[in-house]
């Protein structure tokens, strides 16, 4: 009975949302003034050819730090729940490797995924992409060999070290900006020439930290999901 009323309430709310969306604003003609201002300003003041990166790391860097901490909390919670992997070493080594196609594909794809992931991260301020997307690709690169050969796992503590160091680099860069420029996470080191690899100040460094952190976190999470499903 209650679920029926809940469904009715949800449908009514959804209809109201659609009504407001389609009546209050004409489609294709946004009234956002901040967006146009950022488009005009960002290339000159931040020096990033990819405006999205300029917004994500320079204009709303604290939001990005919040996203990172949410991801950290989620990964920590998963590790807390699924992290009892000490007593199942025998079960882990006893598992058979995957099929020939999976093993050959993993060997073939691992370097390619690594290169693509780092390319997306390092060119985050020039082309579409950045730390989050590239980090996910890196996590996929490190999970694939474990899926192919379950006996060769990657140590969780090394992943945790990479994750912690990357997060530390992000925060220390922000604090340095706080000390130099009196604002947290302001891009330092000048803008450089627009469109070159070493431009946009500290944004590439920040995105590298974000990418390594996201990659290590997600790889750790997925590895915990893959292991010890035979036990308990």
């Amino acid at each position, binding site marked *: 009975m209650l679920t029926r009323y809940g469904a009715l309430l949800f449908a009514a709310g959804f209809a109201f949302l659609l009504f407001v969306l389609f009546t209050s604003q004409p489609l294709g003609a946004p009234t956002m003034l901040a967006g146009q201002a950022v488009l005009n300003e960002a290339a000159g003041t931040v020096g990033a050819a*990819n405006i999205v990166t300029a917004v994500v790391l320079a204009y709303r860097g604290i939001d990005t730090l919040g996203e990172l901490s949410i991801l950290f909390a989620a990964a920590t919670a998963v590790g807390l729940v699924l992290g009892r992997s000490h007593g199942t070493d025998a079960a882990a080594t006893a598992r058979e490797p995957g099929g020939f196609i999976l093993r050959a594909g993993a060997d073939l794809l691992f370097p390619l995924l690594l290169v693509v992931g780092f390319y997306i991260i390092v060119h985050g301020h020039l082309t*579409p992409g950045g730390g989050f*997307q590239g980090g*996910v*690709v890196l996590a996929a690169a490190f999970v694939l060999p474990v899926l192919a050969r379950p006996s060769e796992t990657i140590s969780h503590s090394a992943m945790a070290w990479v994750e912690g160091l990357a997060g530390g680099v992000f925060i220390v860069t922000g604090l340095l900006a706080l000390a130099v420029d009196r604002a947290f996470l302001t891009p330092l080191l000048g803008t450089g020439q627009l469109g070159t690899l070493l431009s946009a100040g500290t944004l590439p460094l920040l995105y590298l930290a974000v990418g390594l952190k996201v990659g290590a976190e997600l790889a750790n999470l997925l590895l915990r999901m893959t292991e010890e*499903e035979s036990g308990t």
Partner: protein
Amino acid sequence: MAWTDLIVLIMVVLVLIGAGAALFLKNLLAAAVATALVSLGVSVFFVILRAPDVALTEAAVGAGLSGLLLALAAKRLGLWRIEIQQDSEDAGDSSC
């Protein structure tokens, strides 16, 4: 413009088929693959709408990571039904 419309039409059909398959497929592994298919089609929409950043995120997270996560979760819960069942002494294969 015509080829963009054609791509959009194909992708709309693909996304709708994938969404329906994710709902109605009995095999949970196939349903996870169907959700990944939906994300892949949506990422093509983002490319056509000139939002390559969002498209990249959708393709990496939606199509790659969340599909894998769903499949692994189904496997951990013992709901991953594989056609060739080697051992019947596993605790997982008695459910569903």
